[in-house]
């Protein structure tokens, strides 16, 4: 009996190609839309996570003033001094590395090319704090740091724009009108929370202070917390230490701030989670719309099919056999549509992900849920109208117009 109904089901699908196609189309669109959207949404979330982790884990950023760029009225809070750095290094427990930093922006020139970029003045500890390695060449030597020699380490964006494919190590380039020797090029980090992290030239802090900023102040101190210590404890000790150093009166507001990169990561992760949920909601709606499309086609074909059911019953088919045929038809069409939808989603995701600069992540769960849901709609709406028709008296089914 199953053999017969399978033959009949495939015959019916083959004979009503348009109807079969429209039925599967609803499922194809539903599945493809959902899976593509969720896959890309997951990719975007992963990309944001990746950027967050590239900020460096367990890093405290110490800056003068409160928050970002909140100057407001009154005297500008003082920058940090070299002594502050020494105190943090020597007195604070749970510190893995401490790096001072000053920033300046300017144009880098090499032969005919020039590129506007940011100059970081810091020490070799900066690369340790950031867990950042040289792709080629080397990092600063202690004597270079000490003397503030004109050496620089360039980020990948600068390297690409100034040196194209050539090896930059050992070359001399000009930065803000000063000649310096390239001693290393950094590994790619990609887009960070604050723009292109690879668009940077790193130089010894003493050189930058002497030639560019003109004083010995340190605008930012980065503290990498040892994995064995709790970041918030170290943060509290650091705040206490700085209040003491900067002579902040009890009860007065800090004239500096300590920023835990984990806070950004928590905030951004929360945001992307909401984004993913929105994407999933949109996807669910498109799945529903696809489902309604399937229902429409199924219900429209019921009239035609009711007569067919009448014919089959009259010539001696048992209701069970007719229903089994319709069930097989619905399962075949729904599963076929589901598989094509998954395939389209796969192709679309692989094609679109690079354009959106997000990784392609294949999520078995999403694929399975979309497939099962749409297949279930197809089967239910293919089967139940048929069941109603098969329950009719064959004569009434034959007369159905």
């Amino acid at each position: 009996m199953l053999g017969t109904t399978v033959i009949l089901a495939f015959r019916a699908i083959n004979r009503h190609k348009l109807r079969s196609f429209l039925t599967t189309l609803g499922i194809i669109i539903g599945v493809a839309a959902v899976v593509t959207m969720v896959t890309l949404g997951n990719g975007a979330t992963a990309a944001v996570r990746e950027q967050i982790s590239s900020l460096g884990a367990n890093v405290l950023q110490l800056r003068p003033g409160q928050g970002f760029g909140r100057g407001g009225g009154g005297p500008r809070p003082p920058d940090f001094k070299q002594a502050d750095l020494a105190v943090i290094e020597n007195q604070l427990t749970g510190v893995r590395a401490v790096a001072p930093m000053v920033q300046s922006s300017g144009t880098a020139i090499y032969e005919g090319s020039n590129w506007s970029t940011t100059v970081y003045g810091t020490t070799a500890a900066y690369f340790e704090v950031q867990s950042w390695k040289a792709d080629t060449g080397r990092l600063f030597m202690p004597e270079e740091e000490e003397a503030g020699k004109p050496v620089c380490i360039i980020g990948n964006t600068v390297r690409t724009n100034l040196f194209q494919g050539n090896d930059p190590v050992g070359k001399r380039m000009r930065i803000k009108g000063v000649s310096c020797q390239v001693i290393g090029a950094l590994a790619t980090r990609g887009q960070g929370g604050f723009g292109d992290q690879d668009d940077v030239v790193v130089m010894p802090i003493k050189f930058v202070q002497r030639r560019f900023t003109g004083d010995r102040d340190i605008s930012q101190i980065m503290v990498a917390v040892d994995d064995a210590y709790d970041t918030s404890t170290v943060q509290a000790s650091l705040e206490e230490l700085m209040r003491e150093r900067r002579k902040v009166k009890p009860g007065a507001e800090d004239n500096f701030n300590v920023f835990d990169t984990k806070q950004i990561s928590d905030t951004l992760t929360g945001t992307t989670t909401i984004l993913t949920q929105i994407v999933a909601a949109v996807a669910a709606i498109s799945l529903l719309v696809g489902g309604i499309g399937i229902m429409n086609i199924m219900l429209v074909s019921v009239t035609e099919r009711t007569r067919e059911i009448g014919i089959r019953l009259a010539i001696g088919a048992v209701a069970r056999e007719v229903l089994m045929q319709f069930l097989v038809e619905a399962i075949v069409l729904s599963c076929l549509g589901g598989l094509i939808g998954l395939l389209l989603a796969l192709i679309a995701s692989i094609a679109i992900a690079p354009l959106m600069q997000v990784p392609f992540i294949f999520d078995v769960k999403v694929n399975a849920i979309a497939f099962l849901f749409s297949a279930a709609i197809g089967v239910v709406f293919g089967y139940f109208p048929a069941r109603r028709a098969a329950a009719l008296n064959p004569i009434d089914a034959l007369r159905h117009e």
Partner: protein
Amino acid sequence: MPSDPIISLRGVTKIYGSGPTAFQALKGIDLDIAQGDFVAVMGPSGSGKSTTMNILGCLDVPSGGEFLFKGRHVETLDRDQRALLRRRYLGFVFQGFNLLSRTTALENVELPLLYRGEDKKARYDSGMAALDKVGLKDWWDHTPAELSGGQQQRVAIARAIVTQPDVLLADEPTGNLDSERSIEIMELLTDLNRNSGITVLMVTHEPDMAAYARTIVHFKDGHVERIEEGVSA
């Protein structure tokens, strides 16, 4: 010639609906149909002839009375048992042909054999033989849309006889055909009745068509009004 009754109706009633809107379509039918007979059922619309045919075709059940088919009580059978009875013993021809669209003549004819579980070879042989009998062997791969009304009805007849049924039920088989095609169909039915021994039950309202039958049963107001026997010999 007619021998034992293959079909017996005893006091068969049929009531549609219930309560004050109930309508009694059959008010106690007694009818015997002999094996090998060719019976035309006539009567004005609403006389109960179609209801009777549906009951005789095991498509519908009587509300009361007895219906014996080959000595078996059909009124006690359930849906599936009646479907199996139709599959085994009955063939149907409808006024509207009721062929499956986009399906070739041969596949339409083979359909009842498929439900009987016969294999491909047997289906093909029996299907082609049935098409040959109705003179459409060369049209086996045509779909209903490519066939004339008369040809479609002949395919429907081939489908009805492919299982070699005991009884062929025809509900206004010539109702949608012109007189020339109607005569072809009636001659085909007569031939099947005489030479293949199939009992034919036919509803018609055309006396010309009824004249092909051996027995004519006249219905009126839910009763059998009269029976003419030996119409054509």
